[in-house]
Structures are given as C-alpha cells and as structure tokens.
C-alpha cells in the first residue's frame, strides 16, 4: 500500500511516454476513446491498422507483465450487471460526445494546457465523484 504511489508514478511516466511516442512518431493524439471509437463508427477506418496495432499493444503488455507479479491481480470490478452495463453505455456515449476521455482530454490535453481538456477533466472528475458519493454513500447501491 505504501508503495502504490511509486508504482502509480512509474506507470504514469510510461503512459505519458506512450503518448509522446504516438505524438512525435505519428503526429496524433493518443486518446483511447478516439482510437476505439473511430473503429466503431467507421470514422477511423482509413487508419485501421495503426489503431488495431495500438490496441493490440495495450492488451498484450499486461499479459507480458502478468507473470512477474507474485500476487494475484484483482480488478475489484463490481459483479452487479446493471452497474456494469449502465456504466459502459455512459462511458461509451460520453467520451465520444465529448471527443475524449482520461487519456485524450486528461493526459494529452492538460499537458498542452488545452482549455477544453482541462474543462472536460474537471467535469468528468466532478461527475464521477458525485456519482460515487450518491450511489455508494447515500443510496448504498455500489
């Protein structure tokens, strides 16, 4: 527990390096929702294979690192199906309408001092915090 922040920082630096490689190499903004969303609605099919390659990398690396961990990794995902489905729908719709998520607006936007990135991040953090407070502490549903 005491070392969690160090791993958070190291992992964060890796995430940012991934974004830097994507930007300086391909000249594009590394946003997870945009890369996936473009495949879903067809708007990104002209860059199909680089999107697929990126997503493959995201899925593969945890599998490579997995054996290095002696402890069992638990994602603590809720087993309440309605929560998972409603949350998934909201995340999918919201990130596409706002044109970005934690990686695009958060990491890539804030680091270039984009006002849209900063505003988006403020709103999704506030909404997330309020939703959790309401459903966990007030209603006791999650």
């Amino acid at each position, binding site marked *: 527990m005491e070392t969690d922040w160090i791993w958070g920082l190291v992992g964060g630096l*890796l995430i940012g*390096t991934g974004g830097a490689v994507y930007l300086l190499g*391909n000249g594009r903004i590394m946003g997870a929702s945009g890369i996936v969303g473009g495949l879903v609605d067809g708007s990104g099919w002209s860059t199909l294979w680089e999107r697929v390659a990126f997503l493959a*990398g995201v899925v593969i690396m945890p599998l490579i690192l997995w054996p290095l961990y002696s402890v069992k990794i638990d994602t603590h995902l809720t087993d309440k199906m309605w929560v998972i489905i409603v949350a*998934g*729908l909201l995340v999918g719709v919201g990130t596409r309408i706002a044109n970005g998520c934690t990686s695009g607006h958060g990491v890539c936007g804030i680091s270039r001092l984009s006002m849209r990135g900063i505003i988006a991040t403020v*709103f999704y953090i506030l909404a997330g915090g309020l939703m959790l407070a309401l459903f966990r502490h007030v209603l006791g549903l999650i």
Partner: protein
Amino acid sequence: MRIFISLISGLLFGGGLFISGMTDTAKVQGWLDVFGNWDPTLAFVMGGAIIPMFFAWQFTKGRHPLVGGDFPAPPRTEIDHRLVIGSVLFGMGWGLAGLCPGPAIASITYNGMGGVIFMVSMLAGMLAAPAVGRGLDRAATAA
C-alpha cells in the same frame, strides 16, 4: 512505420496502466471517493503521465512528426454543450464502475465476464453517440 509506432505506443500505454494499478477499479474509485478511504494513486499516475507529454508538446514546435505530415493543430477553444454534457456522462459511468476506456481495454483479458460486458456496453454507447450528439445539438439550439 505508423503501425510499428502505434504498437510501441500501445505497449507502453498498456504497461503503464497495468503497473500503475489503474486497471484496479478499487484504486480508481478510491481516488474519486473523497468521502471514503481516499486513495491518492490516480493523482500520481496523471501527474506522471503529463510530464513526458508536456516535453513532447514542447518538442513539436517548429518540427514535423517522424512519419511526416503535421502535428495536431492548436487545441480548439470553444467550450460547448457537447464537451460539458459528454464529459459529465462519461464521468458518471467512470464513477459507477471505476473503468474508463484505456483500462477497460488493457484489462480485457483478466477482468472476467464483467470486463467483457463493460466493453460491449461501451462499444454500444460509442455506436449510439452520433445520434445522441445530434439530439443534444437540437436541444441546445431550441434552448
């Protein structure tokens, strides 16, 4: 070349999400849960990620991407209903499940049936987004 660069970037991104603990929904919700047992990890992840990206943006000035072409145009400045409402909807889902798109993808192989159902729901939401967005535009024009 573009495909190779994308793969390297994806490997770094996926590795970072895994190592940082961001595929653990308890750590993400722990950060959002200011009324509970607050977990500061996410702030370190965000801060850590912004550092290399900040230097990368500085480096783009007066240069071109490795594969040629141009870097992204300066960020748009208009704060419209799509940005605000979309971010609020996203945040609501993020708070409920503790998953955002990046970690949902990174953890797809070890997040069980719930992770798969989240992914399918998220893709369905993305598919519905253009229609929902047009509805929002009409409401915004009427208002």
